[in-house]
Structures are given as C-alpha cells and as structure tokens.
C-alpha cells in the first residue's frame, strides 16, 4: 500500500473541508463581533492553528507520513519562534527610541476614521 501512495476514504476530506469552512467563518466573526485585545488575539491564533493543523495533517497527508519525515519537515520552522521573539523585542526598542527622540506621532488620518 505504501508504494501506491496516500489513499484514504473520501469521507475524511469532506469532514475537514466542512470544518475549514466553519472555522474560517468563526475567525471572520471575530472581526464582525468586534472582539478586542487579548480575547481577539487568542481567538485569531487558535482558529489559525486549527486550520493550519488540519490542512497539513489531512490535506497534505502529514498525519500518515513516518516520524522521521514529520520531524525533518515540521521541526525546522520551530526556529522561527526565536526570530519572532527577537524581532518583537527589537520592534519595541525602536518604538521607544522614536518616541524619545522624535516625540509622539502627530499623524492626522484622513478617511476612514480611527478609534
């Protein structure tokens, strides 16, 4: 069977397909229902990870690959977390230096308005 490639019942594809629609609808609702702050960010991340997980696991068949292959492909992107943390520290530092040296923003938005 392994030589024949990835053959799975159609049912699982339909289920994931529907699930992706539902979760996408939820993430759109996060914007419509105007969640803000921590709630908003948490919901966005959770829905994003659920969708990404199902696409990789089922549609891209990673669930059925061998562990050696899973680790080789899914392991390296974990290093991106280091980049994310370093760049957010750096971003905060740059913002502080800008405020100290140039003062607060004087930007006047045209349309659409801002909160």
């Amino acid at each position: 069977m392994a030589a024949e490639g990835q053959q799975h019942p159609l049912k699982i594809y339909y289920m994931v397909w529907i699930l992706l629609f539902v979760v996408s609808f939820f993430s759109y609702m996060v914007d419509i229902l105007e969640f803000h702050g921590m709630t908003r960010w948490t919901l966005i991340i959770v829905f994003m990870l659920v969708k990404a997980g199902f696409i990789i696991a089922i549609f891209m068949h990673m669930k059925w690959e061998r562990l050696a292959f899973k680790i080789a492909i899914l392991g390296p992107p974990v290093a991106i977390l280091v980049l994310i943390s370093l760049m957010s520290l750096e971003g905060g530092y740059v913002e502080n230096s800008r405020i100290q040296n140039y003062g607060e923003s004087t930007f006047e938005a045209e349309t659409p308005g801002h909160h």
Partner: protein
Amino acid sequence: MSEAVLDSGAAEAPGTKGLVEDWARDKQVFGVPWGKAMMWIFLLSDTFIFSCFIVGYMSVRIASTDPWPVPSEVFALTMFGHSIPLVLIAIMTFILITSSGTMALAVNMGYRKDRKKTFWLMVATAVLGASFVSMQAFEWSKLISEGVRPWANPFGAAQFGSSFFMITGFHGLHVSAGVIYLLVIAFRVKNGFYEKRGGNYEIVEITGLYWHFVDLVWVFIFAFFYLW
C-alpha cells in the same frame, strides 16, 4: 524509485523506534517518493521566506509610532448600501478553501487512476485560484486608487502599504504560479502523459502539496494581516 524504499526488508516500525531505524539503517531515510520529498523541502524553504515577510511586518508594525490603519475599515466594501467589513477578504478565503477541497479530491481520484475526474477537479481548482487572483487585483486597484502606496497612505503608518503589497503580492504570485502548474499537470493527466510512465499519479499529490501550501500561507496572512 519507490521499490528502493521497500528494500530495507523487515517491516517498518512505527513511532520513535521507526524514527531511529529510518536514520540508522543502511537505506533511504525518507520513505516517500523523491519528488514528494523535494516538494516538501521547497515548501519548507518557502515557509521561511513567508515567515521573514510576516515577522518583518510585525516588527515595523510594533515600531511604528503612527497609528496602524484599521484593516476591517480599509478593506470594507459597500454592498447593498451597507459597509461590510473585510467582505472581499472573507470571500477570497472561502474561495481558496473550496479550491483546497477540490484539490484534495483530485489527488484521491488520481490515485484511483480516474483520469477524467482528476482532470476536471484540477481544472476547477485552477479556475478558483484564478478568480482568487482576480479579486486580489481588484483589491489592489481599489487601495491604489485610494492613495495607498508602499511609502505612504492616507490612513496611518506608512509601513502599512509596503507590508501589504509585499506580503499579498508574493502570495498572489504563488497562486498565479500554482494556477499554471495545475493546468500543466491537469492536461498531462488528461492526454495520458503519465500512462506512458507506468500510470503513476504521485505527481497529482505533489502538485496538491504546493496548492495546499498556498492555502496554508493565506490562513496565516488572513490571521496576522487582516484580522489582527
């Protein structure tokens, strides 16, 4: 090629034992066709490229002292007399998910050697992809007409424009390339190109990997750029 993988003799152990055996035994490490391994490694490198763009966007958004434009207002469309936030982006998201579904079915039909269904499902995927790119073109022209430029925009921080054009542009380029790739493979499936090569339809799965990756990247762009 796939025969070589099975030459290891003994049955392949699952889990961590299998991990050790795959690496320690004198055999090909990854039990997948070479084309699939190569596509995954390409996608891995592409993951890093997109990550650099999105992390760069995060960095300039944190560092900007000007207010960041509110995406749900910038990307709102007026339909039926109401301003609906992010509506075009939502439609684009659903189109891309639909195309992922048709692609997954195409891969399955490919392994069943149902060439006709594989062909039409791949064509459907390509058509959905093309409509996605068209909507993106519409979105770009709308924003450009409103004065959004890579160096400035009327809504807030200047970095908004550069991040937007860079990230969605690079993604749109991937979708466009994917449409061409899909059509090439679809017509090869149709005209029996792979029948002459032993009737092996792994290529449909490999094409599918690329297409699902494009959808996957959109999931992250949707979350971090449009919803955040």
